[in-house]
C-alpha cells in the first residue's frame, strides 16, 4: 500500500516530461489531455490514500525512496510521509489543481502548440513540486519542494516572457521568496546542528534536547520562510505583482496552493511553535497586521485581479492569526475553504477577462450579470463565502479562527472582525461594479460578450458547490456539529489548544461578525451598483490606491542603494580597467608601442598596489589580533 504514494508526484512529473519534451509535436488537445489527466490520476490516488489514512486513523508507513545525503554526522532520506495533514493537502492540491488544468485547456486556447505545451509542462511541474512539499517527511525535502514551487511560480508569472514588465514581476517574486527561504534554510541548519536530524518524526520526538532559545530562533526563522512564501508583511509585495501571469496560474499558485505552503509548514511544525510564546505572538501580530493592511489596499484597487490578490494576502493573514493563537485546525480549515472560493473567484475573474478580451479594469465593466449568467452566479457564491455569511464555507472557517482569537485576546478578535467587514465591503464593491449596473465598455466589447465554454464553466460550478458546502465538515459544536475535521486532524495537530468559550458568548461573536459583514455588503451594493467609483482617487484614497507606497519605499531603501553600490564598483573598478585601456590603445598604431602601453598603462600597477595594500592591512590586523578577536568574541 505504501508504494502507492509514489504515484502521486510521479504522474505530474511524467506529464511535465512529456509535455515539455514533445511540446512541438503534440496537438493542443493531446497536451491538454495529458496535462489534466496526470493531475486527475494523482487526484484519484490521493483519494485512495486519504481514505486509507482516515480508516487507519494514523500515518501510513512509507519506506524511504533512497538515501539523499549521507555524511559523517547525519543522514537525510528522500522519504515521504502520508498522514492526516498531508493527505488533506494532497486532495486540495490535486483536486483544485485538476479543475484549474481543465479550465486552462479552454482559457489558454489562443496560444500556439509550443507555448501551450510549455504552459502545461510548467503547470505540471508546479503540481509536482507542491506535492513534494507536502509529502516530504523531513524539512529538506520540504525545502526542495518549497524552492521548486518558487521556481515554477517564477516561470509561470513570466510565462509571457516577451513582456519585460512581467519579467520584472517574476524576478521580484522569486527574489522575495528567496529572502524568506534564507530563514527556512537557516532554521534547517539550526536543527541539524542541534539535533543532527531534520525528519519531522525525529525532530518532534527530541524536542527536549532544544533549549527555549533554540526553539524560538528556529520557529522565528521558519516563520520568515513562511512570510516570503505566504506573502506576509513585509514580504508581501510580490504577490499582487505576480498577477502578471495567466489567470488560471493566479488561481492555482497565487491563491489556492503555493501561498498556503507557509501555513502548511507552520501547522506541520505546531509542536515547535506551541513551545515558543514569542513566535506565537509574532505570528499572530504579523497575521493581523497583514490581514488589515492589505484589506485597506483592496478597497481602492480597480484591477479585478489586484483586488483578489490583496484579498488573498489578507486571507492568508487570517490563517496566520489562526496559527498564532493555536487554532491549527481552524487555519487548515480556512486553507481548504479559501482554496475553493478563491480559486472560484479567480477563475470567475478569468472568465470575465476572457469575455472582455483581456480587459481587467472593473471601471470598464458593469452589468455583466445578464451576459455571463453562470459566471455571475458562481462568482456571487464565492463572494458570499469569502464574506463569511452562513451557511457558506467561509463563515465556519473564519469564525473558528476568530473564536480562538477571542479566547486569546478580545482585541485580536475585534481587529479580526473589522478586517472581515472590510473583506465583505471590497468583495461586494468588486461584485457590484463588475456585474451590476450598466455596461460601461465599448460597443465592440459589448457585441462580443459571451459566456465561456463548458470547460471553463464546469470547474466554476463544481468549485461553487464546494464553496457552499465545504463548511459542513467543520461545523462547531455550538451549532450542533461534530467538527469532523478537528477529530480527523487531531492526531497530527497534537498541541492544539481548544479554548473554552461559553456558548452564549460564542453566539454573540458570530452574530456580531455576521451582522457587520451583512451591513458592509448592503452598503457596498447600494453604493456601487448604481454609481461606481470611476474618478481617480484623491487624498487618502490615493494612498490606498497606491498601496501605501510600500513598493516605492522598498525601492528607495534596498534596491536603489544596492544598485548604486554595484554601479560605483563597476565604474570605479571597471571603467579604469578594460575600457580605458582599449580606448587608449586605439591611438597607438605601432604594435610594439601598443604592447608597452598595455604593460605600463598603470593598470597592472594599480592591481599590484591593491594586493600589496591588502597584505599590509592583513599584517596590521594580525598585529592587533588579540584586540580584534576579543572584539569578535564580544559580538558572537
Amino acid at each position: 500500500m505504501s508504494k502507492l504514494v509514489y504515484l502521486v508526484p510521479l504522474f505530474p512529473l511524467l506529464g511535465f516530461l512529456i509535455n515539455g519534451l514533445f511540446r512541438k509535436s503534440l496537438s493542443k488537445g493531446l497536451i491538454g489531455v495529458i496535462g489534466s489527466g496526470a493531475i486527475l490520476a494523482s487526484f484519484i490516488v490521493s483519494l485512495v490514500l486519504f481514505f486509507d489514512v482516515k480508516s487507519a486513523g494514523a500515518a501510513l508507513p512509507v519506506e524511504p525512496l533512497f538515501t539523499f545525503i549521507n555524511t559523517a554526522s547525519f543522514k537525510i532520506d528522500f522519504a515521504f510521509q502520508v498522514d492526516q495533514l498531508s493527505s488533506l493537502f494532497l486532495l486540495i492540491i490535486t483536486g483544485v489543481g485538476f479543475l484549474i488544468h481543465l479550465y486552462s485547456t479552454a482559457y489558454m486556447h489562443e496560444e500556439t502548440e509550443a507555448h501551450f505545451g510549455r504552459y502545461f509542462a510548467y503547470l505540471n511541474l508546479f503540481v509536482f513540486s507542491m506535492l513534494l512539499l507536502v509529502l516530504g517527511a523531513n524539512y529538506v525535502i520540504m525545502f526542495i519542494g518549497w524552492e521548486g514551487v518558487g521556481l515554477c511560480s517564477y516561470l509561470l508569472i513570466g510565462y509571457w516572457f516577451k513582456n519585460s514588465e512581467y519579467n520584472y514581476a517574476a524576478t521580484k517574486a522569486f527574489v522575495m521568496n528567496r529572502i524568506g527561504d534564507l530563514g527556512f534554510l537557516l532554521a534547517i541548519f539550526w536543527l541539524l546542528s542541534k539535533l543532527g536530524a531534520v525528519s519531522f518524526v525525529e525532530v518532534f520526538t527530541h524536542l527536549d534536547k532544544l533549549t527555549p532559545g533554540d526553539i524560538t530562533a528556529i520557529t522565528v526563522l521558519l516563520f520568515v520562510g513562511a512570510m516570503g512564501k505566504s506573502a506576509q508583511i513585509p514580504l508581501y509585495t510580490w504577490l499582487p505583482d505576480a498577477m502578471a501571469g495567466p489567470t488560471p496560474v493566479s488561481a492555482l499558485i497565487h491563491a489556492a496552493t503555493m501561498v498556503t505552503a507557509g501555513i502548511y509548514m507552520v501547522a506541520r511544525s505546531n509542536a515547535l511553535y506551541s513551545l515558543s510564546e514569542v513566535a506565537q505572538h509574532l505570528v499572530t501580530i504579523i497575521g493581523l497586521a497583514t490581514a488589515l493592511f492589505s484589506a485597506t489596499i483592496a478597497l481602492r484597487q480597480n484591477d479585478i485581479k489586484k483586488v483578489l490578490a490583496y484579498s488573498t494576502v489578507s486571507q492568508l493573514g487570517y490563517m496566520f492569526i489562526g496559527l498564532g493563537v493555536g487554532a491549527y485546525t481552524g487555519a487548515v480549515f480556512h486553507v481548504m475553504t479559501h482554496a475553493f472560493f478563491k480559486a472560484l473567484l479567480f477563475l470567475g475573474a478569468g472568465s470575465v477577462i476572457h469575455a472582455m478580451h483581456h480587459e481587467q479594469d472593473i471601471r470598464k465593466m458593469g452589468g455583466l450579470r445578464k451576459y455571463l449568467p453562470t459566471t455571475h452566479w458562481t462568482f456571487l457564491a464565492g463572494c458570499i463565502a469569502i464574506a463569511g455569511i452562513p451557511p457558506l464555507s467561509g463563515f465556519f472557517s473564519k469564525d473558528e479562527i476568530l473564536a480562538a482569537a477571542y479566547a486569546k485576546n478580545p482585541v485580536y478578535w475585534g481587529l479580526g472582525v473589522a478586517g472581515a467587514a472590510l473583506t465583505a465591503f471590497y468583495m461586494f464593491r468588486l461584485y457590484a461594479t463588475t456585474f451590476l449596473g450598466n455596461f460601461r465598455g465599448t460597443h465592440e466589447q459589448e457585441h462580443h460578450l459571451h459566456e465561456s465554454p463548458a470547460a471553463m464553466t464546469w470547474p466554476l460550478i463544481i468549485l461553487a458547490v464546494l464553496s457552499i458546502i465545504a463548511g459542513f465538515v467543520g461545523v462547531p459544536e455550538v451549532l450542533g456539529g461534530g467538527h469532523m475535521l478537528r477529530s480527523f486532524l487531531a492526531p497530527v495537530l497534537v498541541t492544539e489548544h481548544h479554548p473554552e468559550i461559553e456558548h452564549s458568548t460564542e453566539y454573540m461573536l458570530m452574530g456580531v461578525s455576521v451582522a457587520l459583514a451583512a451591513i458592509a455588503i448592503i452598503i457596498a451594493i447600494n453604493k456601487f451598483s448604481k454609481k461606481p467609483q470611476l474618478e481617480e482617487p484623491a487624498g487618502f484614497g490615493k494612498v490606498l490606491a497606491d498601496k501605501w507606497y510600500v513598493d516605492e519605499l522598498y525601492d528607495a531603501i534596498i534596491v536603489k542603494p544596492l544598485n548604486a553600490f554595484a554601479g560605483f564598483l563597476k565604474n570605479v573598478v571597471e571603467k579604469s580597467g578594460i575600457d580605458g585601456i582599449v580606448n587608449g590603445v586605439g591611438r597607438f598604431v605601432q604594435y610594439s608601442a601598443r604592447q608597452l602601453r598595455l604593460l605600463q598603462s598603470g593598470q597592472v600597477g594599480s592591481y599590484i598596489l591593491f594586493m600589496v595594500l591588502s597584505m599590509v592591512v592583513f599584517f596590521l590586523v594580525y598585529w592587533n589580533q588579540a584586540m580584534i578577536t576579543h572584539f569578535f568574541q564580544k559580538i558572537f
Partner: protein
Amino acid sequence: MGTAQILFWSLTALALISAIMVLVSKNPVYSVLWLIVVFFAISGHYILLNAQFLAIVNLIVYAGAIMVLFLFVIMLMNLNTETEPQKSIWMKFFGVVAGGLLLSFFISFVISSADLKGKSAQLKEGEIGLIKTLGKALFNDYVIPFEIASILFLSAMVGAVVIGKKD
C-alpha cells in the same frame, strides 16, 4: 670585524644601492646595467656562503645571458626616457608607502623571531653549494622535479613559439 664581515656588509650595501638605482633610473638601459651590478653583489654573497657553483651559474646565466638579452630587446625597441609613460604622482606615493610598510613588517617579523636570535650563517663551511653535493641531490632525491622542470622549459618554448611565430 673580520674580512668576511667587511665583505658581507660592503656587498650588501652594494646590492641594496644598486637595486634602488634599478628602480629610479629614468633610462631603461641604465636600469639593466644596475641590475647586473646587483647580480654581481649577490654572487659575492654566494661565494661567502661557500656556494661557488651557484655563484658562477648566477653570473653566467643571469648577469651574462639574460641581461644581455634584455639590453638587446630594450635597444631594439628604442626605449628611452621620453617613451616612459607618466604615472600619476599618487600611484607612486601610495606604492612607496605600501611597499615600505610591507617591507618594514617583514623585517620586524624576522627580527622579532625568537628562534633566529643568536644564530649566524655558515660562512665557508657548508657543503650544500658545491657542485658535487648539488649534483648528487639533483639526480638522486630530486630527479622527478628535475624532469618536471625540463617539461616546464618545453612548455615555455612552445609558448614562445606560438606567440612569436610569423604567419
